[in-house]
């Protein structure tokens, strides 16, 4: 019953979306307030209906309703509750439903929180949101119905791919989609502004919170996915330049550029046309990302289905959305009034450099990702573009970006003084040099690139702190005055410092794991001792363990360093009984500066086990840095100027 209700609600949501996509737009063109006012209740109704559909599917999963095809294919009655719920989006149909649910959530959020938006802008924004909704709802109803019933109800389900039964991956798709779909807000605002023909600092201020929230969610999503790959794939790789990863990186890069260029629109009323274009491109890349992954044209664990009907629908949707918005841009952008002037050496200039580099990097990733498809279509052979390509193109573009990242915030708007800014970074430069020398002394100079990398990491981290110290006048003013200044510092400034410093930490983690990793692969018997990087691991025994829906061989290792016991590591070799799949479950010992990573393989007939041991220095900083970037985004989101409407609303409420 719930299932049919969910299906019906989805069809109703399509009808509501059609109304929301047309009438408010016509109303805005005619200046008819009542038609425009229709948008907000329609957006809230959409959330109600799509939310109901989503809840119906979750319900089917939770109660293990095996009369629903989607549940049969992706669930099993013995699966833990968390993975029953995450199974909802662990497949094509369900993940598309999650996508529209989040879209409706954002639409309703504008309807509720956007009370101070001009009526026409709000109507247009919601109408554009609804257009996206129409496309996706049609796609789901026509090609990817998650509510399909079965005539013959099986006794139990097929279970979810065990690789996806993991806490990291349970939350990876929702965060990723919050990011992808969050950029639809920037897109809708951009299209509305193009229709209106006006972009001003107020517009930038309205868009900013949505972009920030989307960026923070996407950052969290990518970090979770990378963390998952790190501990499930059994050897500690966290990024593979796999097309699916690139699909999420491209909107992130473009979104990062958008985040920075919209500052210029807000503060200086410049770079408007470019910012609009970036908003369109960022969301287009999110769409391309969703579909590259879902259409099955790329081979990966994420590709759920290879269905030509879906592929064709997707292609149409992409051409209409991207082609249409770019056409509108070409027609209307020349009419946007150009804004303030600035000298090449200035905060604006630095942000232009940031945007240039990020846009170029996005382009290289796009080329690298699509080139194999392109050659395949031309029948010119099957190729794969792997890490060497991206190391040779993406990394060189990131180096100047990180160098400039520290200098930019120290330049004033309009016209800056580069020697002056550099002079204030003397201490940071000195500490960076010290870090590089220390790294050389500790790890040797086999890899010059690693030293450059660690230098960049230190420069970004220390530079971010130096800029903060500069702002609060640390050591320059009396402590009390510095404290007062720090208190008065806008949250956005704190957010920037956290995010920039976080990137520095993350770079250090990347360098540590790619350049200084130690590895041992060997056959060991219980009683043997393995040592790596000063740690000693004694292989005690292997026991058989029963999990909820798997059985496992669990290895017991005691870890010590210089005779001092540090604890136990228990890697598992799991066998999922329903799917018949094996999964390596690595054991990781994390400390402040490194990870000890242990995976257990198969036993040979003589009773010796394949054991893989890795020492990953600095890797924990990668996730810590990611967390700081997300935190920085959220901190910036709470800035007073983005809540400018709040005090006024409160006055209304007070008697």
């Amino acid at each position, binding site marked *: 019953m719930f299932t049919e209700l969910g299906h019906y609600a989805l069809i109703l949501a399509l009808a509501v979306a059609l109304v929301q996509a047309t009438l408010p737009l016509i109303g805005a063109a005619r200046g008819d307030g009542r038609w425009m006012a229709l948008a907000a209740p329609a957006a809230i109704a959409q959330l109600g209906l799509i939310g109901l559909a989503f809840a119906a599917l979750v319900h089917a999963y939770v109660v293990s309703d095996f009369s629903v095809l989607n549940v049969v294919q992706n669930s099993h009655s013995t699966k833990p509750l968390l993975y029953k719920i995450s199974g909802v989006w662990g497949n094509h149909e369900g993940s598309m439903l999650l996508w529209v649910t989040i879209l409706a959530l954002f639409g309703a959020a504008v309807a509720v929180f956007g009370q101070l938006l001009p009526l026409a802008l709000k109507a247009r924004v919601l109408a554009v949101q609804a257009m996206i909704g129409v496309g996706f709802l049609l796609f789901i109803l026509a090609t990817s119905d998650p509510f399909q019933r079965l005539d013959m109800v099986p006794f139990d389900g097929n279970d979810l*791919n065990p*690789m996806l039964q993991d806490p990291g991956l349970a939350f990876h798709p929702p965060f990723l989609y919050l990011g992808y779909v969050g950029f639809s807000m920037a897109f809708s605002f951009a299209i509305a502004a193009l229709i209106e023909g006006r972009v001003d600092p107020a517009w930038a201020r309205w868009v900013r919170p949505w972009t920030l929230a989307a960026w923070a969610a996407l950052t969290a999503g990518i970090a979770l996915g990378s963390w998952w790959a790190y501990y499930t*794939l*059994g*050897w500690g790789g966290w990024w593979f330049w*796999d097309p699916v990863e690139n699909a999420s990186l491209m909107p992130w890069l473009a979104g990062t550029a958008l985040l920075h260029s919209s500052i210029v629109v807000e503060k200086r009323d410049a770079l408007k046309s470019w910012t609009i274009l970036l908003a369109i491109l960022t969301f287009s890349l999110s769409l391309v990302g969703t579909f590259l992954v879902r259409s*099955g*044209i790329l*081979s*990966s*664990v994420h*590709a759920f289905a*290879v269905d030509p009907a879906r592929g064709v629908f997707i292609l149409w949707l992409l051409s209409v959305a991207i082609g249409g918005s770019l056409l509108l841009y070409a027609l209307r952008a020349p009419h946007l009034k150009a804004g303030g*002037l*600035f*000298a*090449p050496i200035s905060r604006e*200039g630095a942000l*232009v*450099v940031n945007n*240039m*580099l990020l*846009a*170029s*990097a996005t*382009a*290289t990733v796009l*080329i*690298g990702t699509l*080139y194999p498809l392109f050659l395949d279509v031309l029948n010119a*052979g*099957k*190729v*794969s*573009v*792997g890490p*060497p*390509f991206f190391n*040779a*193109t993406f990394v*060189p*573009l990131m180096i100047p970006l990180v160098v400039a990242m520290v200098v930019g915030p120290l330049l004033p708007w309009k016209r800056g003084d580069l020697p002056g800014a550099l002079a204030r970074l003397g201490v940071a430069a000195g500490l960076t040099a010290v870090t590089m020398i220390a790294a050389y002394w500790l790890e040797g100079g086999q890899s010059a690139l690693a030293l450059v990398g660690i230098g960049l990491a230190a420069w970004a981290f220390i530079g971010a702190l130096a800029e903060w110290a500069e702002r609060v006048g640390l050591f320059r003013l009396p402590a009390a005055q510095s404290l007062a200044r720090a208190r008065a510092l806008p949250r956005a400034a704190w957010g920037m410092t956290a995010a920039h410093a976080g990137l520095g930490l993350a770079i250090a983690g990347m360098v540590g794991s790619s350049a200084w990793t130690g590895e041992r*692969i*060997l*056959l060991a018997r219980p009683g043997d001792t393995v040592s790596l990087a000063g740690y000693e691991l004694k292989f005690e025994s292997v026991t058989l363990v029963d999990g909820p829906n798997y059985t496992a061989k669990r290895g017991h290792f005691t870890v010590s360093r210089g005779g001092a016991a540090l604890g136990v590591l228990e890697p598992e070799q799991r066998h999922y009984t329903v*799917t*018949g*799949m*094996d*999964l*390596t479950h690595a054991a990781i010992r994390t400390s402040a500066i490194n990870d000890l990573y242990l*995976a257990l*393989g*198969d036993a*040979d007939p*003589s009773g*010796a086990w*394949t054991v*893989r041991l890795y020492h990953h220095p600095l890797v924990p900083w990668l996730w810590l840095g990611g967390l700081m970037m997300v935190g920085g985004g959220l901190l910036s989101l709470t800035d007073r100027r983005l809540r400018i409407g709040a005090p006024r609303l409160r006055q209304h409420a007070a008697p």
Partner: protein
Amino acid sequence: MTLKKKRRLYILLTAMLGLGGATALVLTAFQDNLVFFYSPSDLKERPTGGRTFRLGGMVEKGSVVRGQGTPVVRFSVTDFKNTQAVVYTGLLPDLFREGQGVVAEGKLRPDGLFEAREVLAKHDEKYMPPTVTDALKRASGSASEGEHAVTTLKRN
């Protein structure tokens, strides 16, 4: 030239510099960083020139031999027409099985053995890498045998 035009020119120059640099990087990277895909039959037809490439096909049933006392594994990759022997040191991915699709990246040794640096099996049971499906189809020519093999294996 007015100040406005001059400043626009600066932005334009930065843009050109960025895009030009990126293009140059991409073009040089394409020179030697592309990894081509070969099926065992392709290997007979076109030489690899000592470069790294990806070998794809099915792991031949009964071909997997694990080393005694060392984590060295030998197996054969087949497209049901030709077969290529592979040697790999390390732990095989969880999804590696006899009779299932596999993609391995590495180089051909002078003795004709394929030395895999990495074995990829990142797909699940229901799923077959498109490159492998395609390689099997090509090897069987237009006959339906390959298709049949593909569908049977998919069902497994």
